[in-house]
Every structure is written in C-alpha cells, then in structure tokens.
C-alpha cells in the first residue's frame, strides 16, 4: 500500500516539470498597434479672400488648440497630429478678436489614422470651408495624385502629368479624386484659357501628392504638396535582425530523463511484484510456524 502511494507521488513529481513547461507557451502576448490620433492641416485657397486667422477647436472646448495667424491665399499648413474626435475649424479675418464671431466654421470628425485637409475654397462671395479626406495608402510601387483647382482667373483648367491626363476640365474651387500613377519624374502641365504653367514634378513610389493650381503673379502657378510618404517598395515580412546569442538557451530534450524515470519505475515495479509474490506463500507458511510454538506453551 505504502509502495503504490510512493509510486503515485513519483509520477506526480515527474509530471510537475512538464506542467511548468506548458505555462510560458500559453502566455504569449498579442500586440496590436492601437493608434488614437489622426492628422489635420489647414489651407487658404480662395484667391480674392484676404488673409485670415484659422482656429482649431476640440469640440466642446472654447480655447483653441491651434491658431494660425495671417494665413494668406495659397498657404497650406503642415499636418498637425491630433487625438481622435470632433473638431471645429473657424476662420476669422486676420487680426480679429478670438472672441468675435467667425466668418466661417466647419466641423471635422478625426478618425484614428486618417488625415484631413480643411480648405477655404471658392470666391470670397461664396467662400466655403471644405473638409477633404486625404488618402494615406498607395498601391505598391505607385504614387497617388489629386488636383485642387484654386485659380479664379482661369475658371476651368486641364491637368496633364507626363502626357497622362489627370483631369480634363477641373472647375475653380473643385478638388479631383486621387489618381494612381506610375512612379517617376515627369512634366506637369496645367492649361486653361490660353494660359499654361509647367513644372517638373517627381512622384516617387509610395508617396501621395496634392497639386494646387493657383493664381500667381504671372498667371497660373502650380504648388506640389507632399501629403504623405512611405517606403516605395515595402519589404516582405519581418526583419531577420538577430542571431540568438542573447536568447535564453532552451532546455535540452526531456526525453532521456523521462526514459530514465520510466525505466526506473518499471524496474521498481518488477521488484515490488517479486517481493509480493514471495511474501504471499511466506506469510501462509509463517502462520503455521506461529501456531506450533503457541501450542507448545
């Protein structure tokens, strides 16, 4: 009886390290790139509207998060990274009190990982604030490009990049959708009403551009904005950046030890059985021996 309990304990002892081994394997953490911010940039693209002060308010907060002073026609701010949520963009005449009623305002819902351009577009008489959803992904090895037509002098323009028409007739105050183009450097041509402007524009793979058509001092003018940039070609998979010299050296195979335990237990069990087999007849014989001396006394 005591023998079998010992064997049971031994088996438990042998199993315990196996259980311990299983724990770290189950505790593999999973990671997720939780982003909680987006981007906003502000632009003044109304040719006959004087300079403005642009305010960015987080919804429900009366103190402005960002104030851009004296923003003139053709100005586009860099992107500002902001927490996700609702925002209000307000435009006031340059120098107007922050407490005065804005000329214009628009609301923006910033979604995680998204970028927005809030642009004053159109003529002063019909000025509007438009929220543009800026794209941040390109097809592999390609570039994306869109055009904002902010020339009042030429109310309709056509845009060509390297002979490829990006837009045949873009009206003043409108924004084309993004188009995918093969990466490279080519001549951009904007023409309308006998006026024409050209620029050599490099569109690298993995980049997103907004081309702004403006009224310059000498007619049409092109402004190339880099909306976003990434790797032209994304490497496949992860990076092989380690050789294991500082890795914990994994435990050696448990099999020889398990075999030793198993063989030992078998041996002990065989021995135990032989003892029992011998003890049963011995016990029967021993009973007789005891009775004989008892009878004698």
């Amino acid at each position: 009886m005591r023998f079998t309990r010992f064997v049971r304990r031994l088996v438990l002892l042998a199993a315990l390290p196996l259980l311990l081994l299983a724990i770290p394997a189950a505790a593999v953490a999973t990671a997720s790139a939780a982003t909680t911010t987006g981007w906003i940039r502000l632009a003044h693209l109304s040719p006959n509207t004087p300079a403005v002060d642009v305010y960015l308010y987080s919804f429900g907060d009366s103190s402005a998060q960002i104030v851009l002073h004296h923003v003139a026609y053709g100005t586009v701010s860099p992107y500002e990274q902001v927490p996700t949520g609702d925002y209000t963009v307000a435009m006031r005449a340059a120098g107007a009190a922050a407490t005065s009623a804005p000329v214009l305002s628009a609301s923006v819902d910033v979604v995680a990982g998204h970028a927005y351009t809030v642009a004053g577009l159109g003529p002063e008489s019909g000025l509007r604030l438009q929220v543009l959803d800026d794209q941040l992904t390109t097809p592999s090895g390609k570039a994306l490009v869109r055009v904002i037509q902010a020339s009042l002098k030429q109310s309709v323009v056509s845009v060509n990049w390297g002979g490829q028409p990006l837009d045949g007739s873009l009206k003043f105050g409108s924004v084309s959708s993004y188009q995918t183009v093969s990466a490279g450097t080519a001549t951009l041509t904007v023409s309308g009403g006998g006026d024409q402007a050209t620029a050599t524009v490099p569109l690298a793979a993995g980049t997103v551009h907004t081309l702004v058509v403006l009224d310059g001092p000498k007619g049409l003018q092109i402004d190339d904005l880099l909306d976003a940039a990434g790797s032209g070609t994304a490497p496949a998979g992860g990076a092989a950046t380690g050789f294991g010299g500082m890795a914990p050296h994994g435990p050696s195979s448990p099999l020889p030890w398990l075999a030793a335990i198993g063989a030992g237990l078998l041996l002990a069990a065989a021995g135990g059985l032989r003892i029992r087999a011998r003890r049963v007849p011995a016990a029967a014989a021993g009973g007789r021996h005891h009775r004989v001396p008892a009878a004698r006394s």
Partner: protein
Amino acid sequence: MAALLVAAGLVAAGAGAVGLVVTRHADVPQAAALQVLPVPTGPIEAAPATGAAQVAEPVSLVIPSIGVSTSLVHLGLTSSGALQVPPTTAVAGWYTGSPRPGAIGSAVIAGHIDSVAGPGVFYRLSQLQRGDRVYVRRADGTLAIFEVTQVQSYPKDSFPTTAVYGPVPDPELRLITCGGTFDYSTRSYLSNTVVYATQAS
C-alpha cells in the same frame, strides 16, 4: 535480490526526475550594464513643408536612454524581397527605400538585437519608453529629433507592413529589431520589435 531491484529502480527514477527538473532551467545570458549617453547637439532642421525640398541622408543614430550610438549603413532588399539587415551586429542601417529621417514620411532603421555571441546594437530597443528621444544626424550635420510614441512586438508571420512601411503625412521614424522566442531549429527570432516615433516639436 528483489528489494535491490526496487531500490535500484527507485534510485534511477529519482535521478531521472531530478535531472528533468534541473535541466528545465533555461540559461539566460546577461549583458553588460546599461550606460546612458549624453544628448547629441547640433543644428536642428525642421521638416520641409512640401515634397520639393529634400533633407540630407542619415549618417548616425543616438538613443541616449538605451545607450545606442551607431553609424548608419544603407539597407536595400534581399533577392527574396525582404529587408536587408546590417552586415555586422554593431551598426544599424537605414532602409534606402524609405523616406529620409526628418522628411515627411516613415523612415525605417533596422539593427540586430544580438550576434551569436553577445548583444547587438539594438539589444535594448524593447526597453524604450513612450517619450524617449531618438536623434538622427544627417550628412550635412543637422539633427532630426524624434519622440517615441509606441513600442510593439509582432510575430514575424503577422508583421504589420502597412503600419511600418506605409505612407504617413508627417516626419516619423520606425526602429526595427528582433525579439520574442529564439527558434533554435531555424536559428531566428519569431518576433520583431517595432518602435514608432514622431518628430519632436
């Protein structure tokens, strides 16, 4: 004789159990103590607003809080399309297919966590904390300064290609090294550590 057999068996089983327990302890190599480095100084160049302007190529990297100071080699792609890694474990490398650090976009710098014998240049990368600063010096002597926003670990078979290599609208940096379990059968780590940083304002 039978008792001897039992005793021998129990001794063998006991020795096996002891051996099993003792060899379950993994051997964890220890690196030298961390030495925090001084903050580099130099002219700081703000990010260009448009794509027309270009910043100079990166030449070196300093991460004071984890004692990293290294020159930067150029990394391309392997024949199978994976990211090339630095030829030695003592230097980090900038992926030339990514934007230059400080220009608009996600610049990518990779380095080894270890060699076969000891720590590599990015051994302590996973110890970076949100807000830690990363300094990249460029060929014209200017500095681009970044602030860590996230430190993440991903299994290599589910590497977040878009988050790491995809376009972003502001100057950002990605630092990549290995991590997680080392698979002795393939002699490679099963995970990658990725540090996300944005340009400090």
